[in-house]
């Protein structure tokens, strides 16, 4: 192994809130992430509404690997590597669609939507009828499961069940996908763009970095939102860090960031959401990361994945989420609002790109820049594991870096473990606290 355990432990001191910049650029660490993190963790693939009908499929990635996700005739979902078992060519190059089979365009090996190898040219003459086709289906993920429409998969057969992996974050995820009886749907169209930086920068920001908002996004949020929330002291709110690496930060008493065409609808639905979830979860706007690379802005109807493309490049795949039962004009208003603020050209998001890209360039070119220990000490020692109502480790303030520390603690466990890193000290009884 090119990166040894003690070296990693020295680089990530989550207890003191210091992380070496090196983990955001080192090639060997990145290759180890593909092996130990992205080939083990449960990764988000799709929402049910993206592939509603049998034969519907989409192309995505699990870590660096291309994966096809397809709805089966019985309504279940399968996911498998988009790489032919003959020579490893992509068997499907469309980003989404509906099909009965995938034919590799190199030699014509053809697979059904379950990933079974069903046709091989010259099977009977050139292969003499001796090819064991049943052994050469597309490589399936080890486990696939969904939580309230969010479909996840892992390449590790030893990974615990999805619900156990999500752990106490489920309490908060409910507020993003199950706040109204009809649940959510994802609008068509994935906005995809490229940052020349490290994927963890974005994942940690969405887990816990509310602190950047009033500076980075000064030009956009100051003119199109309730500006007083973004100046002065930390807004009233809280941060959740899971022992399992997930994080959420929310501002209280605010149904969304923007006064847009969907604002009235969100205000109206608020009582429904509060009745289902209580005000702490329902009447907040925030940002979250489900470890390692699914994030979103629940008050603002956004889901996104940070797809790693090397130590210093990642792609953002961003979706807009609406309530499934919302009127069509509300969905349209949300689409317009999200297009204005989020995505490659979003007035908010363009400033994140400026930060993340330039930070990557500094690490790419420099030596001294890589030696820096970045500071993650905000709120250190001011969190509680015994909040009266909220599960997880709680910081009773919107600003803090507890979720980032939890993220890197978990990252370190994956990276330094030979097998699936079980959390012996995770409190499985968290749900008793919230009377689920």
């Amino acid at each position, binding site marked *: 192994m090119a990166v040894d355990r003690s070296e990693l432990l020295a680089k990530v001191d989550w207890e003191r809130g210091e992380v070496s910049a090196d983990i955001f650029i080192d090639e060997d660490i990145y290759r180890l992430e593909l092996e130990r993190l992205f080939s083990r963790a449960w990764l988000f693939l799709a929402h049910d509404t993206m592939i509603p009908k049998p034969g519907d499929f989409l192309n995505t990635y699990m870590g660096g690997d291309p994966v096809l996700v397809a709805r089966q005739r019985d309504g279940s979902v399968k996911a498998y590597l988009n790489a032919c078992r003959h020579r490893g060519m992509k068997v499907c*190059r*469309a*980003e*989404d*669609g*509906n*099909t009965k089979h995938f034919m590799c365009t190199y030699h014509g090996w053809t697979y059904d939507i379950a990933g079974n190898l069903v046709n091989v040219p010259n099977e009977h003459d050139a292969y003499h009828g001796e090819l064991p086709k049943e052994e050469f289906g597309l490589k399936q993920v080890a486990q696939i499961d969904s939580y309230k429409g969010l479909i996840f998969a892992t390449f590790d057969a030893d990974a615990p069940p999805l619900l156990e992996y999500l752990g106490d974050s489920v309490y908060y995820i409910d507020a993003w996908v199950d706040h109204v009886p009809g649940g959510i749907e994802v*609008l*068509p*169209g*994935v*906005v*995809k*763009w*490229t*940052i*020349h930086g490290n994927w963890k920068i974005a994942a940690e920001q969405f887990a816990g970095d509310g602190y950047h908002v009033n500076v*980075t996004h*000064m*030009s*956009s949020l*100051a*003119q*199109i939102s309730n500006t007083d929330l973004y100046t002065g002291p930390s807004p009233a709110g809280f941060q959740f860090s899971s022992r399992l690496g997930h994080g959420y930060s929310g501002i209280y008493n605010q149904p969304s960031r923007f006064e847009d065409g969907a604002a009235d609808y969100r205000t109206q639905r608020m009582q429904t959401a509060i009745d289902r979830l209580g005000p702490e979860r329902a009447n907040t706007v925030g940002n979250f990361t489900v470890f390692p690379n699914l994030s979103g802005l629940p008050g603002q109807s956004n889901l996104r994945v940070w797809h790693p493309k090397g130590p210093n490049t990642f*792609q953002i795949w*961003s*979706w*807009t989420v*609406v309530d499934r039962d919302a009127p*069509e004009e509300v*969905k*349209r208003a949300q*689409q*317009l609002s*999200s*297009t*204005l603020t989020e*995505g*490659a*050209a979003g*007035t908010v*998001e*363009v*400033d994140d*790109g*400026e*930060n*993340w*890209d*330039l930070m990557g*360039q500094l690490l790419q070119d420099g030596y001294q820049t890589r030696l820096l220990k970045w500071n993650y000490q905000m709120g250190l020692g001011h969190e509680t594991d015994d909040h009266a109502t909220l599960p997880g480790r709680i910081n009773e303030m919107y600003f803090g870096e507890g979720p980032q520390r939890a993220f890197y603690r978990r990252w370190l466990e994956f990276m330094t473990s030979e097998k699936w890193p079980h959390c012996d000290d995770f409190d499985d009884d968290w749900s008793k606290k919230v009377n689920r």
Partner: protein
Amino acid sequence: MTTQLERSTAPIATGVTMQVQHEVEQFLYAEAQLLDDWRYRHWFELMADDIRYRAPLRKNRLRRQRLEDEVADRGTEMALFDDDKESLDVRVMQRETGKFWAEDPPSRTRHLISNVRISLPVDSAGDEYDVRSNFIVYRNRLETEVDIWAGERFDLLRRDGASFKIARRTILLDQNVVLSKNLSVFF
């Protein structure tokens, strides 16, 4: 009904005079200059009150499932840009705050506009033109950052005295995954 795409791929003989061709091209060049000179408020003033400024996503689809008309409206599908005059104004105001870090210091851009093809809209009263043009937008930023975007624009230009207003612009950016860190420029 024929689409804008079909109409403007018809052979020449669209009833558009050399004079109109000249006026439209000069207008597009002047518009590009406003963007490259960072005069965004002046650029914004070229927009009609009913402007729709839109850049749909470009998809990788198999031929049999691809969109027949990539320019047509797609309902609630997400887009790179989907602005009316009010939201376009928000984008311009952002540049005027002095706090827009993505463009402060400002990028150097060069809008190269070519292949200008003009036709008359079906229901035209004679004061509007469907204009297709190709573009390359070069962005150079800070010390060494470079982005190059190519694509095509489908505009509806409306006569406005001696000039035009842009009443509709649909931008087909020739990228699937946007290759840059952001799109903090106008096309």
